[in-house]
């Protein structure tokens, strides 16, 4: 039993106004549970929905009231059943009362854990807060919320609220929204509650932190301003990349009947002499060799330890400098945060004073850090003020690692002004660029900032966990396509681009790009990878298609192993030029013939026809180059159903190929004799 297990109740609004975001709610909640299943198996979760058609909770039996609140799952250790329940949330029919749900959730937590303070207790409320709560029997709504909040604080329950803001222009009662905002704000004043507002489905997916990590300090001690003035601080990591999970190697060698097979793979390392591979050297007989010029110098770890750089644990201020001296791109690593020692009021004031003064004067502090005793290096970094806007969170510093002299590579680049005039944008082009930069605004005033890192989920991890869930039900499930909501992270938002369509078009029109004609085809690269599972349909699929055609010639030639839809000619040429296996040529010709026939047969208008002809020309050229049958490709022409082409009759195809009538007759004869 994990000591630090968490009890969590999800309160989900399923009322009619929530229906449009429920798919995202389902996704984020199941993601939360899935991660718990992997990283925190002992956590316990319950689900309550409100705004539902029926009523099913203990309180309604015990004291009455609390209608339309359904306890979907009682608090229990996380399992697959909870994930499934979350993926099929019932759609409710009435406007939900979130306060009822909060009370039910609280009641569940209190009944389950009583007063034992084991672990953490948390309530997570997801609602749009558009519907009024019922008037209490006595007192005001404010009083009621306060009472609940006091209870919550007494039981040490944390609350997290995610409010989904409707799009502007929808008819919502602003008065109710304001009242709800006020009431929910009361919670955060009285208890440790947090409220976040989200507007778009994408940020809703990022609003709930699905991985719960209890932070650990990397340093506790003094921030030495001078030997005479030391401020007590704690240092934590502020950002840390959540890595793709490390999967275990799997062995399928065990017989399928063996129930107790671990399927594990052991990795063994052996160290062998380069000159005599039969000689195995035990690991402790190895010694590290360091290069010094052409020779390798063996140095034992004892020697290193005796002489290596051993700084004392400390965090020392070197001085302050102008913020403009530290350019943003110098930041080297993930970010740490310095906060004053909790509970130490004087230190908090000192940090706050310095941070605010730094902000005012636009200065930053340069510090030298040795986090631990025995650490073999020092870290040079910059402290920037991180002022808090809320009363309850302290001011702090962000710490970023700066490069040393050795880490900066001083390469020279030409000045833009030295480029030829043909590379300089004209005034009109500059204007178009200005407009583009202004109009494609992801953080328009008065609206939610799109793709705010704090609210943007990692699309790859989302996809992995989604696939994991699918696989747990069906082991051979294919990789699912990237979710529509997540596509807004990897691809431009169609709405934003269509809103500023004229600007985008003007920009594209004022500039011209073309491929460098001097380059040989084979030297071109620009690998065009297709995203897996992409459904290239509609609006934005088209642009990527168009692009694919544009840069088609630059496809990685060596890799073509089948003839695709986008660039058949290039694929064909690539296949023909593959020399690793003679079969490629035969395969290429066969595939190409099929492709052309397909194109011709499935063609509705004349647009595919030209393409088919191009393919045909390529096919013929390829065949001649390979000195194969001179009639190659002509067989295919027979299949051109000439009546269906208004624009180009089949006859033209022959001309196009430059095959004269005489030869044609010869070929016809050839084919006929061949058939017989």
């Amino acid at each position: 039993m994990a000591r630090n297990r968490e009890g969590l109740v999800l309160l989900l609004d399923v009322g009619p106004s929530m229906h449009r975001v429920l798919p995202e709610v389902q996704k984020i909640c199941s993601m939360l549970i899935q991660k718990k299943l992997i990283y925190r198996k002992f956590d316990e979760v319950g689900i309550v929905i409100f705004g539902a058609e029926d009523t099913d909770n203990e309180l309604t039996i015990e004291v009455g009231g609390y209608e339309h609140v359904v306890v979907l799952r009682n608090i229990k250790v996380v399992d697959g059943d909870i994930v499934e329940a979350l993926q099929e949330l019932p759609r409710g029919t009435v406007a939900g009362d979130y306060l009822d749900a909060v009370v039910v959730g609280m009641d569940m937590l209190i009944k389950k854990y009583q007063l034992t303070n084991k672990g953490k207790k948390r309530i997570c409320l997801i609602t749009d807060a558009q519907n009024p709560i019922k008037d209490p029997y006595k007192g005001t709504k404010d009083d009621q919320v306060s009472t609940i909040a006091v209870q919550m604080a007494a039981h040490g329950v944390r609350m997290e609220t995610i409010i989904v803001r409707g799009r502007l222009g929808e008819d919502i009662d602003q008065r109710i929204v304001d009242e709800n905002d006020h009431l929910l704000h009361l919670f955060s004043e009285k208890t440790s509650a947090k409220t976040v507002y989200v507007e778009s489905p994408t940020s809703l997916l990022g609003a709930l932190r699905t991985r719960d990590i209890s932070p650990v300090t990397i340093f506790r001690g003094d921030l030495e301003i001078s030997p005479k003035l030391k401020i007590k601080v704690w240092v934590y990591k502020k950002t840390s990349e959540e890595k793709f999970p490390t999967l275990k190697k799997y062995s399928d060698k065990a017989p399928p009947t063996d129930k107790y097979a671990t399927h594990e793979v052991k990795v063994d390392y052996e160290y062998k002499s380069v000159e005599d591979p039969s000689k195995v050297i035990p690991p402790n007989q190895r010694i590290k060799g360091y290069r010094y010029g052409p020779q390798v110098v063996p140095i034992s770890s004892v020697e290193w330890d005796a002489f290596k750089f051993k700084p004392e644990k400390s965090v020392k201020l070197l001085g302050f400098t102008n913020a403009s001296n530290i350019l943003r791109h110098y930041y080297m690593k993930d970010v740490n945060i310095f906060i004053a020692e909790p509970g130490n009021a004087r230190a908090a004031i000192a940090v706050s004073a310095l941070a605010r003064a730094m902000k005012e004067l636009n200065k930053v502090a340069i510090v030298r850090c040795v986090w631990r005793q025995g650490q073999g290096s020092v870290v040079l970094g910059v402290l920037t003020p991180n002022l808090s806007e809320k009363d309850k969170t302290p001011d702090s510093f962000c710490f970023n690692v700066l490069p040393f002299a050795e880490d900066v590579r001083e390469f020279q680049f030409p000045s833009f002004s030295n480029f030829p005039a043909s590379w300089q944008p004209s005034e009109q082009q500059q204007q178009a660029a200005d407009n583009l930069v202004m109009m494609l605004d992801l953080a328009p005033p008065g609206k939610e900032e799109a793709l705010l890192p704090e609210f943007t989920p990692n699309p790859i991890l989302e996809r992995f966990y989604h696939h994991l869930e699918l696989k747990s039900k069906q082991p051979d499930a294919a990789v699912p396509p990237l979710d529509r909501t997540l596509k807004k992270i990897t691809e431009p938002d169609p709405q934003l681009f269509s809103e500023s369509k004229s600007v985008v078009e003007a920009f594209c029109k004022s500039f011209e790009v073309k491929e460098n004609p001097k380059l040989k085809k084979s030297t071109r690269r620009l690998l065009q990878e297709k995203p897996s599972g992409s459904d290239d349909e509609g609006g934005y699929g088209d642009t990527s298609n168009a692009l694919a055609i544009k840069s088609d010639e630059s496809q990685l030639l060596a890799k073509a192993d089948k003839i695709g839809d986008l660039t058949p000619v290039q694929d064909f040429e690539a296949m023909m030029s593959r020399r690793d296996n003679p079969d490629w040529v035969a395969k290429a010709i066969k595939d190409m013939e099929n492709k052309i026939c397909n194109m011709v047969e499935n063609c509705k208008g004349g647009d595919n026809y030209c393409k088919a002809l191009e393919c045909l020309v390529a096919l013929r050229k390829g065949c001649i180059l390979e000195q194969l049958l001179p009639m190659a490709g002509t067989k295919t022409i027979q299949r051109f159903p000439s009546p269906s082409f208004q624009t180009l009759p089949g006859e033209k195809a022959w001309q196009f190929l430059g095959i004269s009538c005489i030869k044609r007759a010869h070929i016809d004869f050839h084919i006929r004799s061949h058939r017989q």
Partner: protein
Amino acid sequence: MKDIGCQYGILSGSRENSLYNALWVAQALLRKGSSRTARTTILLFTNEDDPFGSIKGAAKADMTRTTLQRAKDAQDLGISIELLPLGRPDQEFNVSLFYAQLIGLEDDDAAQFMPSAGQKLEDMKDQLRKQMFAKRIVRRITLLIANGLSIELNTYALIRPTTPGAIMWLDSVTNRPLKTERSFICADTGALMHEPTKLSQSYKNENIIFSVEELSEIKRVSTGHLRLLGFKPLSCLKDYHNLRPSTFVFPSDKEVVGSTRIFIALHRSMLRLNRFAVAYCGSSFHPRLVALVAQDEIINAGGQVEPPGMYMIYLPYTDDVRLIEEFHSESNVRVPRATDDHIKKAADLIKRTYLKDFSVCQFANPALQRHYAMLQALALEEEEIPDTIDETLPDEEGMARLGVVKAIEEFKLSVYGDKYDEESNSVGNGKANEASKKRKAAAENAANESANYDWADLADNGQLKDLTVAELKLYLTAHNLPVSGKKEALISRILTHMGK
């Protein structure tokens, strides 16, 4: 770079063209080197600015011509010639007489050559031990802007942490290099297998199996390009939106003509409007949301300090950002904030300890410098390891200046009152203190308890194994030894400690 160990002198009046010969020999030596990838440079040290000055007439013209031709041939073969002129006391070295032509200097450059060459020589003498990197494109990428319009960009790694360099495992007996062989063994059957192509993740008490292809397909969420998503004001890029070193982006017209023009236009607009671009970088290696921040060129007297271009900054996702500030704000108490007086005193302090011309590149990494110094000393079997200076230590003298001390004292007084000394004496408080008290109490307790055993006797009679782990740990705690490990490990640790 190779040193040429032959000596030549120009004898005036002789018909021998030793400069020509020197170049010829140097070139031959360099050509002998097998590696085609190595950089080859001839360093030409001379104090004679006009090698053929003493020769007159056609012979001079002929010698000049052949020598220049020799130099040009060498340069055509990819050998660069660097001239390091050594000044003579009585006269200045005049490049334009002969050498400007030899190393291919233009008229304007020749004027600037001398001061920079002097600098070069100076640099060589006390050079920072620094790994040199050739300017290399990390990747070529395309930036898709909109409607199929895309431009070509090159990325460069301008800032990367330098490591002490790769190590090579050697056999400590023979000092011969070793190679590592990895083998995979099935834990169930014990059979040797190839590198497994299947990986598993335990989930819902089951092993869910993924193939390597599936995993790479999951990771491929976008084309391998940079896709422009939009722009944001620079204020949206917070200091904590950072994960790894940035990557420099510079346009190229090599394959897509017109790229540079578009890049310059966007670069200017972004600088002028104080905006950065948000893009999705879909490389298969590290797909991420990135910020493209435009950087204007900065030039000072010494040359280009910051090249013009954009920096790609890797942005975190929601689960990468931790809410530390809120972690400690559980109680509903307001946190103390500095008053205006505190802030004013802090501002005074900041003004006093202001580093005027700080630049990030001014400090060498003391650990790395130490490493190189040690390596050199051990490699050359020097007696002593030279001392390296830690430049990163604060300037104690400066801090002890009267003005600074006064500002610090005032700030201290305003924030801490006269209680500063009390606070610094109590080592931490709250949780940490409790834990350390507990630890101390446990150690004392263990010392008392462990006195009840006759450890030497137990060890001699081999009775330690009859004791429980808890009992063994008493000894270890009392003697401040680590208490981790299995019972055997504990026993052997006790025995080692007793010296048995």
